[in-house]
């Protein structure tokens, strides 16, 4: 079995399991797993920009949070009591302000388009993309690279979080937006605890994986890998490095925004904590655990870390130890398995013993020595590729 066949089988098994899960789960766990799948989508976003293009964004939470807020704003306005003006604004307005969305609090007119659910849903992807385009344009045109990109995106996420907390009359401040209406499209209601929301998340996840895989196994993916390995050389070969980076950075932000919207759908709230540094860095760790350059790996990494995490936080003995285990996981993954679970899977499929047997049969005419040399070169190459 080649690695390619094995990974196709892995994808199919994963999709089948994801689609079959609601049949065996109760409503509580359906909701939990739906949220983990949302985190998986975040991890895919990280894997696209970090794993393929080497852009480590520590501000992914900003885009995630933006997506969540966009949909949450629409769903806030969908609650009857929040018309014409959301409760949170009534609590924070000046005593004699006009009770209309145009001017009840400073900037409240920004909410007006969100009366339409469709606008909220489109904005959930478009706003993070546009924001990322702005940040990315300035960063990449100035040829900011490596760790500076991480720090700048981290700083942007912190600014976003602070601004949202600070503008309480507009954003609900520290408490964020809660008590949302259920999302309803064409008379069909998405119940966060039922299979409807679950399948919305699961199908989005599968679509994102397939589209990302289609995109990244093609030309774009190859160029991005080239940029990751040696930016100067890729530029010298005539590729427009900045635009490629900008493109994948925006796509990854859009994916995070999409995940944010699905988070609102399944959790029914949006708070500034979604933009916290710790969540942004956690996303990177999910992707790293699963395998940074593998879309499916990143996905599974997010699922496993979150699932074990929530199991641990339910047991009284493990709850205090879990952050330590998580911390150790960071260290162990980085030190000993830089390619994560996907790397282990790949090593298992391509394990030397088997290759030797196969190779021995195919290359009967060659000496054992040249076989070994070839294997060495092969493993060296695959290690480099990974």
């Amino acid at each position, binding site marked *: 079995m080649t690695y390619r066949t094995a990974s196709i089988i892995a994808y199919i098994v994963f999709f089948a399991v994801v689609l079959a899960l609601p049949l065996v789960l109760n409503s509580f766990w359906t909701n939990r797993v739906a949220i983990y799948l949302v985190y998986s989508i975040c991890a895919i976003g990280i894997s696209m920009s970090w794993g393929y293009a080497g852009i*480590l964004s520590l501000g992914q939470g900003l885009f995630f949070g933006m997506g969540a807020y966009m949909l949450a704003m629409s769903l806030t306005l969908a609650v009857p009591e929040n018309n014409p003006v959301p409760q949170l604004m009534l609590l924070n307005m000046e005593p004699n302000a006009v009770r209309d969305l145009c001017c009840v609090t400073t900037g409240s007119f920004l909410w007006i388009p969100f009366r339409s659910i469709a606008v909220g849903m489109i904005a959930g992807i478009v706003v993070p993309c546009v924001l990322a385009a702005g940040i990315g344009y300035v960063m990449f045109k*100035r040829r900011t690279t490596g760790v500076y990109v991480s720090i700048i995106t981290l700083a942007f996420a912190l600014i976003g979080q602070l601004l949202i907390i600070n503008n309480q009359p507009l954003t609900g401040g520290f408490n964020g937006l809660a008590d949302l209406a259920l999302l309803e499209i064409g008379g069909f209601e998405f119940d966060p605890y039922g299979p409807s929301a679950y399948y919305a998340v699961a199908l989005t996840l599968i679509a994102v994986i397939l589209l990302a895989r289609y995109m990244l196994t093609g030309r774009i993916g190859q160029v991005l890998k080239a940029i990751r390995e040696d930016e100067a050389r890729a530029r010298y070969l005539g590729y427009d490095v900045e635009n490629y980076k900008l493109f994948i950075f925006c796509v990854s932000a859009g994916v995070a925004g999409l995940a944010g919207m699905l988070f609102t759908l399944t959790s029914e709230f949006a708070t500034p904590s979604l933009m916290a540094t710790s969540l942004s*860095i956690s996303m*990177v760790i999910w992707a790293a655990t699963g395998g940074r350059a593998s879309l499916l790996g990143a996905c599974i990494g997010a699922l496993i870390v979150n699932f074990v995490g929530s199991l641990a936080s339910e047991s009284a003995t493990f709850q205090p130890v879990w952050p330590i285990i*998580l911390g150790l*996981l960071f*260290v162990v993954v*980085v030190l000993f398995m830089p390619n994560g679970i996907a790397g282990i899977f790949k090593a298992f499929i391509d394990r030397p013993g088997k290759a030797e047997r196969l190779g021995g049969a195919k290359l009967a005419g060659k000496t054992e020595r040249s076989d070994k040399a070839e294997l060495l070169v092969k493993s060296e190459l695959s290690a480099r590729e990974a």
Partner: protein
Amino acid sequence: METFVIGLSIASILFMVALGLAIIYGTMNVINLAHGEMVMIGAYTTVLATKHLGLNIYLCLPLAFLVTATFGLIIERTVVRRLYGRLLDTLLATWGIALILQQLIRIHFGLGLFGIEIDGLGSDLQNVPVPAELQQAIQLFGANIPVYRAFVFVTALALGAITWLVMYKTRFGSQLRAVSVARNTAAACGINDKRVNMLAFAYGSGLAGIAGVLVSGFKTVSPDMGTPYVVDAFLVVVAGGVGHLLGTFASAGILGEVQSFVATWANDVYGRTVLFAVVIFILLFKPQGLFVTKSR
């Protein structure tokens, strides 16, 4: 004037944290996100020493330096040592260490699991008693200046001076500078670069520990207090120019004052927002930082 003095004390703390980070990042090219936890451990050392040993805050300064330097040494030996040359990975691994250290404080180094609790640890907020002479205020140019803020400022200056002496007047300092400019050449000339790494990491951590002692005097101490410091300090380091003592000093000063003035004029949140915005602009238009180390 009061704003200026508050700015100076913010800048002093930033400077002490950033100095350690600058040495670590400049010499070893390691991003130590557990550096904020060194501040936290320094603060907890103060809490424990004042509670259980009856030490005052002055004696805590060298004690916290030793404790955090030891922690730094252990981290370098066990984890960071294996990650040289993998910049982004050091960032992730040290974040993991930071999580572990925070949680260790929360669960009383694991003793909490067995029902043993140490007074001064745990997830609660802690306060440190400040000696009476530091609680007063002095009049200077018609402004009230809290003595404690002045004490922080003087300590930071003294540490800056000591670090300068260490870096430029000792054998270790010249080895350190040699390693940070050209590691392999330095190693070929007979400098034990592994040892230099180890000591530099410990020294940098120790500086953060001292900053922790000083922070504990005017802020409540909690397990997650360190995280904001490491982000701010890192911004200071990159804005000032990596591996440049004077750059770190100047950018800590500028950023501390900017934060303080905007915070007084608007509020704390805008203070921090403007701080980040300034750093982003510096990085975008002067990616090498304000001061560039000449290299050949």
